[in-house]
Each structure stands twice: as structure tokens, then as C-alpha cells.
């Protein structure tokens, strides 16, 4: 990654009882999730990038532009940074209608620099019918969509999203997630996405940074990072991998859909997507069991040949996490230590991974 492309972010910030100390090199495109439990510093990090928080020691360069360099006493004020910021609770202006909320940022960007039109953002977020309403007449999900559109209309060169779904119930989340995916697919704006939800991260992110107590403990490409074994036990109860697959065909008789990916295929309940479309699914480590032989006399349909790469202790003394390579697709299995001993699991060993549940994202 050369200096002109990507995001270089180094911050040291002290609060009573909390210290943020990160040094990150992030890709300058796609969705990067800042993932961690509450109090891990992910929102503070995002606010430092936005310029809402001023880290005493800091260096921030985004795709070749320097926004902060404490060594040179350089600090670009938040309102001079070409960012869009989506707040956890939307933070709309209560005294302005939806339309005027949307126009607030847009009007303040030179016409020559506008790359997102009002109609385009309104259509993308499905808020056409809300334009004349006041914010207090919107549901939580609607507010959040307006907040996202408002941020997009500043034609940001970097979109910062602070848990945009955290304040919403599951139904509202599912209402917004498709819009976020469209955003990802249709606009080429790099996104930093703060979340504590593994499912959201798995569904939206390309790249992930794991934060714990103000430090970045891992960062990298999503699939690689989630399949790593050396992460602290705090994350191992959520351990699992994300697989990007293609719809290969449907089985109308059994109402199943076949998904293929490097290393094999799985059958899932019938999906609406047409053959050739791409889907992400997540396999939790706790839903993967291991067998030495192909167990044909079993109700589990999804079996993948795999090779053991490594094994480590899991979150409880009774369990271990096994990292597998299924023909190029990494998998994690969480099994009891007793089973591991009985099967004599060792690196290099060939065996079968039995997948109980495939969680489809989308």
C-alpha cells in the first residue's frame, strides 16, 4: 500500500482510565469495520478521524491528503474535512425538515465537487415520501436512512459510520442493511464502519480492525482476520468465518439452493437469488464438527473435505478451536478437547468438516 492510497491513522489519546493508542494502515476503498466491544475505543477512533476529537499525538492521511500531523501542528478542522459522518442516533437537525436536513451539507459543498445528486441519494435510501416531514415525525429506521443520505450528499471522500444500526431493533436493522449494501455496491466511497455486531461486520465489511481496550489487536482482510486463531478469547465465542459464494442452482423438489465457493459447495434453504449471483454466508465455529471419515449416514448434508492447519485453546477449558483449510476456504471448528484427543487432531491431518448451520447474510 503506497502512501497516496489508503488511510494511515496513528493516534494517541488519553482520557482518565482510558487510552487510545492505534497505528493503522487501512485500504483506501471498500468497507473497513472497526470492530470491538463497547469501551474498546472504536467510536473515539472514528471521532479522531472525523476531527471531532483531537488526539494530542496524531497522524492522519487519507488517500494522499494529510488531515492531522501533530509533529507539524497540523490539524484540519472537522468542517474542512471531506468526510460524511453517520451518527448512531442519526442526529438530525430538529428545526429543519428532512429536505432541508439533506440540503444542509449539500449546499455547503461547491457545485463542482458534488458527485451525489439529491434525487440519487433519496432514491438510494428510499426516503422520497419523507422529504417534507420534520425529524420528530420519523421512525428510528427512517431517521437513520435520512442521516445516511445527508452524509452522502456532501459527496464525501470518506464515509464514517458510527454504529448506524445499534439503536434499532432487528426489524429496522433488516430494513436498512440492504441500503447499506447498495451503498457499497453503487458508490465507490471508502467507508469506516464502527460496529460491535459480528453479523453486521460479516455482512458488510471487506476489511476489519479488531479493537480491544484502545488498541488494535488485529487487522486485515475480513475472511483472513475472522479465521485467525490468535485473537483473544473475548472474540472466540463469536468465532467463525465468512465465505463468499455463488448461487450455482436451485433444487425445486427439496426447496434447496446450492452455493459454490473455492473448496466445495453447500446446500441451504431456497434463496430468492438467481444462479450466478453472489452471496455471503457465515459459518460459526460452534456449528462445525469434525469426522475422520465421510459420514454418509448422517442428517448433516453439508460436508467438506478439509485439512487441519492449527489448534488452540478456546474460550472454555473444555473446548479447542481448530483452523481448517477446505480447499482454499478457511474454516474454524469449535470442538471439545476430549473429541480432539480422541480424533488425534494434528496439523496436516485430512478430515471432514460437518457444517450444521450456514448463516446466510442478506
Amino acid at each position, binding site marked *: 500500500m503506497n502512501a497516496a492510497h489508503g488511510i494511515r491513522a496513528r493516534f494517541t489519546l488519553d482520557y482518565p482510565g482510558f487510552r487510545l493508542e492505534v497505528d493503522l494502515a487501512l485500504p483506501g476503498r471498500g468497507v473497513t469495520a472497526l470492530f470491538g466491544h463497547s469501551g474498546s475505543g472504536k467510536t473515539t477512533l472514528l471521532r479522531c478521524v472525523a476531527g471531532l476529537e483531537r488526539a494530542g499525538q496524531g497522524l492522519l492521511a487519507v488517500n494522499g491528503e494529510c488531515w492531522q500531523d501533530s509533529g507539524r501542528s497540523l490539524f484540519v478542522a472537522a*468542517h474542512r474535512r471531506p468526510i460524511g459522518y453517520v*451518527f448512531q442516533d442519526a442526529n438530525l*437537525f430538529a*428545526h429543519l425538515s428532512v429536505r432541508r436536513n439533506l440540503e444542509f451539507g449539500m449546499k455547503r459543498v461547491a457545485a463542482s465537487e458534488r458527485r451525489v445528486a439529491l434525487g440519487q441519494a433519496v432514491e438510494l435510501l428510499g426516503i422520497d415520501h419523507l422529504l417534507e416531514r420534520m425529524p420528530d415525525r420519523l421512525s428510528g429506521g427512517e431517521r437513520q436512512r435520512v442521516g445516511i443520505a445527508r452524509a452522502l450528499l456532501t459527496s464525501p471522500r470518506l464515509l*464514517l459510520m458510527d454504529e448506524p444500526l445499534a439503536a434499532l431493533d432487528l426489524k429496522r436493522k433488516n430494513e436498512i442493511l440492504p441500503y447499506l449494501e447498495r451503498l457499497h455496491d453503487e458508490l465507490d466511497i471508502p467507508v469506516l464502519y464502527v460496529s460491535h455486531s459480528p453479523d453486521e461486520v460479516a455482512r458488510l465489511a471487506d476489511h476489519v480492525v479488531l479493537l480491544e481496550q484502545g488498541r488494535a489487536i488485529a487487522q486485515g482482510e475480513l475472511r483472513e482476520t475472522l479465521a485467525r486463531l490468535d485473537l483473544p478469547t473475548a472474540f472466540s465465542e463469536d468465532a467463525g468465518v465468512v465465505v463468499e459464494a455463488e448461487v450455482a442452482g436451485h433444487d425445486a423438489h427439496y426447496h434447496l439452493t446450492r452455493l459454490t465457493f473455492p473448496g466445495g459447495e453447500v446446500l441451504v434453504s431456497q434463496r430468492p437469488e438467481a444462479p450466478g449471483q453472489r452471496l455471503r454466508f457465515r459459518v460459526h465455529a460452534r456449528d462445525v464438527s469434525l469426522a475422520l471419515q465421510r459420514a454418509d449416514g448422517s442428517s448433516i448434508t453439508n460436508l467438506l473435505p478439509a485439512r487441519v492447519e492449527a489448534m488452540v485453546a478456546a474460550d472454555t477449558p473444555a473446548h479447542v478451536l481448530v483452523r481448517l483449510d477446505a480447499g482454499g476456504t478457511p474454516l474454524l471448528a469449535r470442538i471439545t478437547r476430549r473429541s480432539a484427543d480422541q480424533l488425534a487432531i494434528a496439523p496436516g491431518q485430512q478430515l471432514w468438516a460437518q457444517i450444521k448451520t450456514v448463516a446466510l447474510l442478506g
Partner: protein
Amino acid sequence: MIFDSADLAAIWLTVKLASVTTVLLLLLGTPLAWWLARTRSTWRGPIGAVVALPLVLPPTVLGFYLLVAMGPNGFIGQLTQALGLGTLPFSFAGLVVGSLLYSMPFVVQPLQNAFAAIGERPLEAAATLRAGPWDSFFHVALPLARPGFVTASILGFAHTVGEFGVVLMIGGNIPEKTRVVSVQIYDHVEAMEYAQAHWLAGGMLLFSFLVLLMLYGSRFRQGWQG
């Protein structure tokens, strides 16, 4: 005619004094209230206390110090004389200065509360939408603080109308220059003109009631947060 010409002059002078005072207080009080609502300076406490002093001081005390300060040997008097303005006591300008101090907390405190209630978050949203500090002050903070401005204007105006002690100390009783309604009522009573006093006093009572009704019964009292 219920009011004679002296009464009408006093009413006009009172309205003029209250209007000028309210406008000036809104102009001067807004930055002060903004600062008090947001600063972390150690001066916040002392300055806030000074602003609130007229709430508890007898008007005669305030009027006495103003009289001394604005007199020929006081520091304000020295200044106004140096500027060729003469001295302020017993003039309309002097009354305005007195009223500014006297009504200050009634304007500054509602504004300060309104600004504090807005908090940092709308301003942060404005900053991420490219609005600089002045821009977000005028287009976000001021509109959001509108209920506070309504309250401050009403209270500032009404409280100035009801001023008596400070006026008597620094303004005296000069027709068409410093004789406001409250002083005129006093004069009527001194002269045993109870009918005249009744009309003015009753008018003040009605005015004050209507003002408070406006304040407590108004939809402006409901904030924006719904």
C-alpha cells in the same frame, strides 16, 4: 381621556426604554450566554454570579453604585466626559445603562439554558456537514435556541417595564426624559391623584398578566425535542 399627556409621555418613555434595553440585551447577552453555556474556564463561576447579582440586590444598591460610577468622578463618568458625552445620570442613556444591568439575568439566563440544552451534538453534526463555527452558530444553534430567545425577550422587556428603584436612583424624575410609568404612578399617589394612579397601575397589572400568560401558555415553551 383616561390618561393625561404626562401619563402618555411616561408610557411612551417606558415602552421606548424597555424596547431599547431588550434589543441591546439580546445583542450583548447572546455572546455572553453562549460563552457561559459552553466555556470550561474558571471564570465561568464568577461571571455567572455577577450576571445573577441584580436578581438578589436591592435596586437601590445597584442604582447607588451606578450613580457613583456614572457621576463626574466615577470611572464611567470620566469615560463619557472624555468622549464628549457629558455624564449619564438623569438622562435617558443613563436609564438604558441601568436597565441593561438590572434586566441582564432575565435575558442571559434563559439564553444560557437554551444553549446548554442544545448541547454539543447538533454542532458536531453541522461540523461534519461542512459548517464552520459561525455558520453553525447562526444556522443551527440560534434556530434551536428560539424558545430561549422568546422567553428572554419577554422577560427582559417586562422586567424593564417594572423597574422603579434603579430609575429613581439614577434617573430622577424628569418628564419625557426619565419619568417612566412606575415613577409616574408614584407621583400620582404622592399627589393624592388616586384615580390616575389606578388607571396606570391597573394597566401595568394587566400588561404583566398578559406577558406571563404569553410565557406560560405559549407553544414556544415546548422545545423542539418531540
